[in-house]
């Protein structure tokens, strides 16, 4: 193996420094997509979880209950499909449906859809883990269904949901780099442009270092949360 060639084409400091501004721009886009996807995905997931729990309870009209079927289908598909496949299908499909949104927003909507599906399952398991006596007690005191959810059930469900939720959040943030496949100018895309311009892989290694610096604290945090909650 040609060691000097390897070092020169992977750890060329001059090229890394040259592409640092472009990589920083890409990093900003990655962070933007990640924050939007997390905020919107978690909100949508929470709403979905409450809706699915609510329509399952007794007294719900049968017609409303039928709503559970498409929701379950959506959640299961998102859990079964590789996010890259969803991304490629949505990106190619939208124009045919007459929907013209930018690559950036195509990517954000896919990550939101994927995260919401996983988050809704996690929240739902959390809500269902809270003893049903709590709901009955609150309702018997005259607290409305939505208020009981908001002030009694969800805060307790959240504690149960936190460990799997953080690890899923980390995994969706890492998936943000898939957006480069449909041409979003994120950190990975900037690195690829750097490789194409210099015939040298150093920009990719620089990007890998930036990704690691960005995600390592998140990975550590999610492991910490998992261990804390086990006790």
């Amino acid at each position, binding site marked *: 193996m040609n060691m000097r*060639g390897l070092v020169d084409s992977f750890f060329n400091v001059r090229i890394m420094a040259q592409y640092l501004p472009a990589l920083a721009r890409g990093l900003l886009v990655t962070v933007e997509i990640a924050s939007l996807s997390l905020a919107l995905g978690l909100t949508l997931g929470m709403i979905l979880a409450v809706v699915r729990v609510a329509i399952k309870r007794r007294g719900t009209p049968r017609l409303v209950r039928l709503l559970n079927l498409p929701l379950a289908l959506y959640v299961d598909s998102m859990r079964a499909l590789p*996010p890259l496949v969803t991304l490629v*299908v949505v990106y190619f*499909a939208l124009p045919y449906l007459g929907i013209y949104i930018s690559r950036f927003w195509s990517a954000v909507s896919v990550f939101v859809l994927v995260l919401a599906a996983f988050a809704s399952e996690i929240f739902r398991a959390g809500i269902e883990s809270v003893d049903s006596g709590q709901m009955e007690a609150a309702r018997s005191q005259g607290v409305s269904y939505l208020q009981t959810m908001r002030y009694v059930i969800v805060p307790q469900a959240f504690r149960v949901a936190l460990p799997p939720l953080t690890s899923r959040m980390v995994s969706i943030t890492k998936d943000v780099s898939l957006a480069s496949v449909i041409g979003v100018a994120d950190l990975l895309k900037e690195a690829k442009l750097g490789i194409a311009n210099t015939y040298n892989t150093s920009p990719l290694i620089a990007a890998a270092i930036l990704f690691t610096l960005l995600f390592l604290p998140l990975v550590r945090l999610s492991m910490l949360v998992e261990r804390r909650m086990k006790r």
Partner: protein
Amino acid sequence: MSEFARNFFNVEIMARSWTIIRVGLSNTVQLAIVALICAALFGLLLAVIRALRNKVLNTLIIIYVDLFRALPTIVLFMIVYYMLPFFGLSFPLFWGAVVALTINGAAYFEEIFRAGIEAIDAGQWEAARSLGLDFRQTMTKVILPQAIRIVIPPATSNSLELVKTTVLASVISMPDLLYKAQQAAGLWYNPTPLVLAALIFLVLLWPFVRLTGYLERRMK
């Protein structure tokens, strides 16, 4: 509506692209099986080494696990791809993808197996060792058989994630299901093959989605 069907569920194109899609499907299945076995075995090996409680080895394993849990898998695939020429030009893409999936998957499997091994009561170690069993015997005959039962739910869910990750091989132009579907979509200028690929993934992986949910619920 017919316009929609013509573009997404075009049966004629589905039938015609099947010969292309089939090649991709077969590659994806092979990649998934080989990578899953390699990643699980490597992860298990790391977890067992970690049980030796050697400070230097443990630090190295922790760095490895943290690093590859933090690095997006697609970046790892690309690094492996660009490094392949340094291992000889004839290094097949298939094994490049296996290497990337193994490096990444083992980091997760190590954590799962370690948690399983650590969940076994320390008294079991002491009892086995006091009966004269050595480390290897204690591990293979006492600890692992019990740990395996604990790790089945998280290991199943991690295996599902790993199989889903195989589509990243398309990014380094290994002709997997997604790559072949994109090729067919380009050939007929119609996204139907992509929908077909998505449907195949759905049919193949949906039972496992249900299975992981079932196993996790049962563990509780």
